[in-house]
């Protein structure tokens, strides 16, 4: 059977071919949804299988005849890229199947064109994971950014979507510039831009730090780390739901992959204080993201902000890995890295699941703001239950996969007091506190999301005829929910899968110590162990036992009546808690995070309107000043072109004289 590398390359070309097929008949929806997306899903599954196959095999490299004459495309698959290929394959399979039911003609762009960009986007992500030299990496990286830009601006009739697309591509491009500079720093004057060349260059000291900072900025811009996160809550909601699922679930992970590749693979000796920077940035992003998620009133923006929070947690785990790696504690670095990678995989699954659920809800109700939804559990049970699985996972509650990776992350934090740096020991409890606070807040946000969208009474009359998701959408949702549940109940096997990756990057793995597949014990069993299957089994038996005993000893009779209205007869759906209402406590507690502008009505206003908006401080503190600065500089430059011909002549006369003096 061909080597996994060739398989994955062939599958990537298959995706591109599918995209090209989409261009043949751009206007027909049936062609795209009945032929291309299912095939795309199949290719996704095969990518996951190939990735799994490559996970345990030694790294494999190849040089393609494409690319620049003296820097052809180098391609390489090792444990790290294999793991992320599995992640890409699993998510792509579920999302493409969902896409078959979701995409229709009214998207603003021809469905064939949308399928072309969709499959190009998938292929470029796969190629980013395989790239083994700076040029191919940059080509795949920016093709990913470009294809996702065209997907985000699918429905470009709305000005808000266009500006979101522009902001997204601009920050992605600036990130790419930083990554190019980082590769420049990594090649250490040797001029060899293949990753093997960079590994051999053994860049260390000041240049390594410059490379790290640039990598952090470049990949942070794509991942959505705090100062550079502004595009994420604009771009993800603007895209169609399957695309936002792909962008949130998988594209953010390619940024994490890039950062891991640069810091742990290309730079041979990472310094420990790099980890502290990443940890601090990660925690700030996590807290900032979740607090903003709590006050959103648009469900897709809420999920986008919660992606920022999860990326923050992943960066915190990555920071911890660097700290341990910096101090040479291989086993603890492996634990932290396992927690980070496991959280990447989990987030890819449950965030895609939740975005797809919002996609189904928008499909049925064509409504996105939380203020006009509610009570959908009665009419869309299938979507509601899958969303419940997603909600429990994202809130990090026990039997789910979200909890397993959070558990590992907290375990990693618990082992830090053994570090030689004294003030680092003090900082880490605070860091653990912030992680715990963020996890609790994500529970708060998800109760708001699920409660307002699915429970309660429908806030709009038209929600009455909301139909449940079609067969294709259900299979997509079911696939992702099943993956979440399996990952949640069998974390030990997943840790086993991650073992070759951690062994490749940090030199040691933690899978060897687990007590069989049932228990998850990071270092030693008596220190800490957790068996989700046992917890789920015992809890289920207790619940069923209680249910049976009550039915046995007493009875199961029940009757229906109106809800308790405390004597007030005009109770209606508008009296439920709105999204803004549910977010009000967080806004009250975390007031300093927001830039709140309230518009209160005048006392004698006959039709009082109360409006309050929370904006992002970074937008006013960082982005507008930079834009004004650039504007001012361009103002200066216009002095050169004032239109008078004699001034132009003076310019060339002066240059001539200056140069002659310089030469003479």
């Amino acid at each position, binding site marked *: 059977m061909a080597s996994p590398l060739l398989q994955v390359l062939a599958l990537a070309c298959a995706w591109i071919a599918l995209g090209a097929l989409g261009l043949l008949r751009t206007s027909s929806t049936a062609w795209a949804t009945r032929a291309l997306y299912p095939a795309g899903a199949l290719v996704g599954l095969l990518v996951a299988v190939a990735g799994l196959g490559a996970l345990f095999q030694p790294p494999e490299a190849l040089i393609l*005849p*494409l*690319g*620049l*004459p*003296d820097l052809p495309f180098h391609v390489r698959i090792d444990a790290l890229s294999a793991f992320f290929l599995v992640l890409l394959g699993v998510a792509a399979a579920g999302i493409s199947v969902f896409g078959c039911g979701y995409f229709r003609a009214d998207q603003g762009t021809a469905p064939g064109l949308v399928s072309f960009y969709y499959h190009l986007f998938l292929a470029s992500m796969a190629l980013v994971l395989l790239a083994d030299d*700076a*040029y191919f990496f*940059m*080509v*795949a*990286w*920016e*093709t990913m*950014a*470009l294809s996702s830009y065209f997907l985000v*601006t699918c429905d*470009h*009739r709305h*000005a808000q979507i*266009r500006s979101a*697309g*522009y902001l997204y*591509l*601009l920050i992605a*491009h*600036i990130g790419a*510039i930083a990554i*190019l*500079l980082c*590769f*420049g*720093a990594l*090649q250490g*004057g*040797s*001029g060899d*831009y293949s990753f093997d060349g960079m590994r051999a260059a053994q860049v260390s000291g000041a240049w390594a730090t410059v490379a790290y900072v640039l990598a952090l900025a470049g990949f942070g811009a794509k991942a959505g780390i705090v100062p550079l996160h502004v595009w994420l809550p604009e771009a993800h909601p603007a895209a169609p739901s399957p695309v936002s699922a792909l962008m949130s679930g998988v594209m953010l992970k390619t940024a994490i992959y890039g950062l891991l590749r640069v810091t742990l693979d290309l730079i041979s000796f990472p310094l420990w204080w790099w980890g502290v920077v990443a940890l601090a940035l990660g925690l700030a992003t996590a807290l900032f993201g979740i607090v903003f998620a709590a006050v959103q009133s648009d469900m897709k923006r809420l999920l986008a902000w919660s992606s920022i929070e999860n990326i923050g947690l992943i960066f915190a785990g990555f920071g911890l890995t660097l700290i341990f790696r910096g101090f040479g504690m291989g086993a603890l670095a492996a634990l932290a890295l396992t927690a980070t990678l496991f959280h990447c995989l989990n987030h890819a699954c449950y965030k895609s699941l939740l975005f797809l659920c919002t996609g189904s809800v928008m499909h049925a109700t064509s409504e996105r703001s939380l203020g006009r939804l509610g009570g959908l559990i009665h009419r869309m049970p299938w979507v509601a239950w899958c969303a419940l699985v997603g909600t429990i996972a994202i809130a990090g509650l026990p039997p789910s996969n979200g909890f397993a990776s959070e558990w590992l992350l907290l375990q990693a934090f618990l082992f830090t007091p053994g570090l030689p740096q004294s003030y680092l020991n003090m900082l880490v409890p605070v860091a653990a506190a912030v992680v715990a606070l963020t996890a609790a807040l994500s529970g708060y946000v998800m109760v708001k999301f699920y409660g307002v969208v699915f429970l309660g009474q429908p806030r709009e009359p038209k929600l009455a005829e909301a139909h449940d998701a079609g067969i294709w959408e259900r299979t997509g949702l079911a696939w992702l929910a099943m993956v979440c549940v399996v990952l949640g109940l069998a974390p030990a096997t997943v840790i086993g899968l991650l073992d070759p990756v951690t062994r490749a990057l940090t030199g040691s793995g933690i899978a060897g110590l687990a007590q069989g597949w049932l228990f998850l014990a990071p270092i030693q069993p008596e220190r800490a162990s957790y068996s989700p299957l046992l917890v789920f089994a015992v809890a289920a038996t207790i619940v069923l036992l209680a249910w049976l005993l009550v039915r046995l000893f007493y009875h199961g009779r029940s009757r229906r009546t109106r809800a308790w209205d405390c004597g007030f007869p005009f109770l209606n759906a508008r009296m439920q808690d709105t999204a803004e209402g549910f977010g009000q406590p967080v806004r009250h507690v975390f007031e300093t995070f927001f830039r709140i502008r309230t518009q209160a009505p005048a006392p004698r206003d006959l039709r009082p309107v109360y409006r309050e908006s929370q904006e992002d401080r970074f937008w006013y503190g960082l982005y507008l000043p930079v834009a004004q600065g*650039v*504007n001012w*500089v*361009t*103002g*200066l*430059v*216009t002095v*050169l*072109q004032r239109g008078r*011909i004699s001034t*132009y*002549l003076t*310019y*060339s006369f*002066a*240059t*001539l004289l200056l*140069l*002659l003096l310089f*030469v*003479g």
Partner: protein
Amino acid sequence: MSLEMLLLLGSPLAGGAVLALVGHRRYAPELNVAFSTFTLLAAAGLVTRIIADGPVTDLDEQFFVDSLNVFLVALTAFVATTTAIFSRPYMRIERDHGRVSAAGMRLYHSMYQMFSFAMLLVLTTNNLGVMWVAMEAATLTTVLLVALYRTHASLEAAWKYFILCGVGIAQALFGTILVYFAAEKVLGAGAGTLLWTHLDAVKDQLEPTVISIAFVFLLIGYGTKVGLVPLHNWLPDAHAEGPTPVSAVLSGLLLNVALYALVRCKIITDGALERPFASALLMGFGLASVVVGALFLSRQRDIKRMFAYSSIEHMGLVTFAFGMGGPVASFAGLLHMTMHSLTKSAIFFAVGHAAQKAGTQAMDDIRGLIRVNPTVGWGLMLGTVAILGMPPFGVFASEFLILTTAMAHQPWATPILLLSLGIAFASIFGKVQPMVFGDTTAKRLPHSPALIPVFTHLALVLALGLYMPPYLADWYRMAARLIG
């Protein structure tokens, strides 16, 4: 005189003469295309000959074609042909709108052919003096073309173009005289002293001080034609006010030809002087052009003017690459020159149709092109994405090479370059996106636009971005070694 050379120079000359008589007829554009294609065939013949048996001199060494200028000849002939194809419907629409009179059409077609003759002459001549004369002829032919519409703005643009370039070219003449003066010491007076091949042979014996002063004058002269920053003022006006085919040819080809002449002089100067005086100057001017060119972009309101400034920026980048020197940098410079001229001419084709559709060149009034005519809309969007150096396209390949060699040899320059490329991206994309997306104001056009050229150019750039055929790669490498 070999057959290809005769055809290469003869057909545009003949075309110019013929079209001067029948330029206003209905079939004149087709004739124009025919003459250009004929030149292209001659150029192809020349290219195969050069690849087969290396550099060739002709007509007792008056003409010299080596691997450096043969690819420019091929590029010029190709883009001239595609622009001729594009100008067929464009000029018809312009005439229907009454913006160009019958005499104007005659002038346009004949000057178009004379202009390609002048450019090809500059590229193939071996004599620096003849090169100067041909460059001056190129300027003269395009001045009338820029003023074709006889509006206030086009007259002003043409006047400035002529005065500034005239003065600039005069400095180049003085430079050529000084080179002749220095060469005369070594090769003795006579017709052969100004031949580039002879100069190249004896360049290390030339007097350094004279050559450095000569290079200064040549740099100011040809630098004005390339549009390097302190001398760039004429370029935005000239490229924006003329008819779009003229802007495409000016931006795409004339800048390359001027830079080619400058490179020829740089080779001589490098030979004569030990210290890297010429490359330092080129790098300085190149960097200034990239930075100032990028900073100008965000305040533009006219689309052709914006893309003219983008040409200044890209030409600055190529000059910087040639300034850095070394085989990889020169290779990147040549590659970037090709990519830039292909992409920029494609963009001007799309812009031409877009402006005609919307009836104006002001970017605020052009909206939603994709909804009116998807091919024009996508052509403009893909062209802009390519010119901004977004990867799958070839412009990124050459920019990548330039930046990576800069990082290896001149690390101080890379942040400045990348910052200005970032600002350029922000400005151009910010203005083009609302033009392409969104709801529309444009109306349909009588003649269907000829968009084959746009997509052939972009397909070529995309292909070269991903896969560089080996013979093309060696061709560039040989030329890069020549530049040194």
